[in-house]
């Protein structure tokens, strides 16, 4: 009988010896039902996405009469051309790229520096430095004081209102810290013997050995900045500064200006249905393009990571 324990997915673990028992009939029924349920999960996850894709290529009449399901009806590319011919869309798209690159770079520098410091167990005051960060996971100032602060610092309508208040994710920081802690101490001792100072050790020894971890961090930060909208919505007033998520939000809300409350009137929804779908597709596109690349590491990697840990 094949057993419950998962390691059969591990390349590094020898397959669990089969004891020669045949699975019981009940278990085979369970396997069938299980496969069915999981297939259901896949279908439910994909259905809305495929529907949006179908809508983006469909003619408005078919959408309005509720005929677009999994396949486009009245196939056309006019909506794509229409959205892509809006200069504001491209301006906002460029803003998203710009904000993502700058914010990710700053986040990475701050996170790596602090995580490296926190990983040094001998450091006096380390627990205070750790506590200072961890406490903010459970208690924060709240929306209004943050808003007042960012406005008071004069950061409104600048890129810094988006970048700085979210520069360090404490969770990522702690993950990075535990990664640095798991590095062999001997490496850095050797570096010290060779006369490297702290900065040189970090730059020349530690970081090159952390490439995989750094790549993952960059990815997670970049995705979160690419997807973020609320800071931009809150602090930016001029539409030529918006990221593409706010552009999309305004389409959804049926407003072109800076409407304050997320309202969605049914008429606006009707008019813009295919335009919304196209904008959704174009916003998600870069993430969809990198996803197959990253998930390959992920699905196999999760298991390996668990074994090492």
């Amino acid at each position, binding site marked *: 009988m094949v*057993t419950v324990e998962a390691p059969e997915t591990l390349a590094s673990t020898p397959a669990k010896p089969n004891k020669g028992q045949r699975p019981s009939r009940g278990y085979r029924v369970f396997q069938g039902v299980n496969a069915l349920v999981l*297939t259901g999960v896949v279908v439910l996850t994909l*259905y809305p996405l495929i529907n949006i894709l179908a809508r983006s290529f469909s003619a408005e009449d078919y959408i309005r009469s509720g005929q677009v399901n999994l396949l486009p009806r009245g196939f056309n590319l006019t909506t794509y051309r229409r959205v892509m011919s809006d200069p504001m869309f491209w301006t906002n798209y460029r803003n998203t790229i710009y904000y993502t690159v700058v914010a990710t770079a700053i986040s990475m520098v701050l996170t790596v520096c602090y995580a490296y410091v926190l990983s040094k167990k001998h450091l006096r005051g380390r627990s205070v430095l750790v506590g200072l960060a961890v406490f903010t996971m459970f208690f924060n100032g709240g929306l209004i004081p943050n*808003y007042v*602060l960012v406005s008071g610092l004069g950061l409104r309508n600048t890129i810094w209102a988006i970048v700085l208040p979210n520069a360090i994710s404490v969770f990522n920081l702690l993950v990075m810290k535990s990664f640095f802690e798991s590095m062999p101490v001997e490496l850095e001792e050797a570096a010290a013997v060779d006369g490297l100072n702290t900065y040189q050790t970090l730059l020349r020894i530690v970081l090159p050995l952390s490439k995989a971890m750094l790549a993952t961090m960059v990815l997670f930060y970049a995705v979160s900045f690419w997807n973020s909208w609320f800071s931009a919505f*809150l602090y930016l007033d001029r539409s030529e500064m918006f990221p593409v998520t706010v552009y999309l939000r305004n389409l959804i809300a049926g407003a072109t200006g800076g409407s304050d*409350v997320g309202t969605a009137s049914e008429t606006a929804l009707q008019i813009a249905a295919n335009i919304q779908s196209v904008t959704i597709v174009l916003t998600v596109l870069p993430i969809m393009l990198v996803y197959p690349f990253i998930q390959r590491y992920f699905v196999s990697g999760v298991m390996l990571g668990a074994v*090492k840990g």
Partner: protein
Amino acid sequence: MLSTYVNGVQKTLTWLTRDAYCAAKCNGQLSEIFEDAMAARTWRQALRRDWQLYSLAILPLLFFVVFRYLPMLGNVIAFRRYRPGGDIFGERWVGLHYFQMFWSDPTFWQVFTNTLIIGGLTLVVLFPLPVVLALLLNEVRTRALKRLVQTISYLPHFLSIVVVAGIVFQVLSVDGIVNQGLKALGQEAVPFLQQPGWFRTIYVSSEAWQTIGWGTILYLAALTTIDPDLYEAARIDGANRWQQTWHVTLPGIRPTMVTLLILNIGTFMAVGFEKILLLYNPLTYPTADVVATYLYRVGVVSGSFSYAAAIGLFESVIGLVLVLSANAISRRTVGTSLW
């Protein structure tokens, strides 16, 4: 490359967790005591030896002080009159004026109730689902199927909330696929997003769609660390598969479950503020409006900053009390707790 990340996440959770049965953690504590002995005895010595390390901490510390701790202090405007554009700490003391104001504000109590309901639903419905999905995935013998389910179900996690909201609008619109299904069954089309009665269902379902798959990652990782000998022993004792799951698998992932549960309780009051802001409209306020969205409208939109700050402070304090209580209860009952 992401394996290292999940590995790190696991370690971080373990580090955040003090599990009574976790021997590894105890070893960690021992070694830390050991390290303490090596630590510099005075600040002067420490600074002389490690000034380069401390210098690396300056910018991050500046970030925490300015963007995390200053706003905490900024909450004093809940007790002071604040003029937009004026001093960020307000102008003069008004005591508990703003707290009394929201205490007698019926809208506040309505949004407070909504928050508790949506937060409760999120916890009760969305917390167990990843566990169930992980257990189901764990039973799959066909590797291709397992891979497919993982690949597809992780995907929504990487989408922006705005995109998810957009998808919700499309799917639930009068011409969307849900209403197409209803029509095929001979039902009338339902304008879901205009009806308060549907909002909670819509919110929780869209959260489920986006988070369940990704939520399985840590459980799947925890499942692989369960000692296979335990199953062997359980089988010899005559445990069937269901009993094995109940007595071996679930206790094996319990520390992970408890840690994530406590962390989730910590975000109970904040609920999915951004998503609700995108999905709700004045028609659905009766069920959809939560504390966070209400104080956003009162503060940022209407400019009553002090009033909104009072509400926000109340919310944060409840959140902190919740997480501390959950932690204390968990420590007494199952022996697992944060810090």
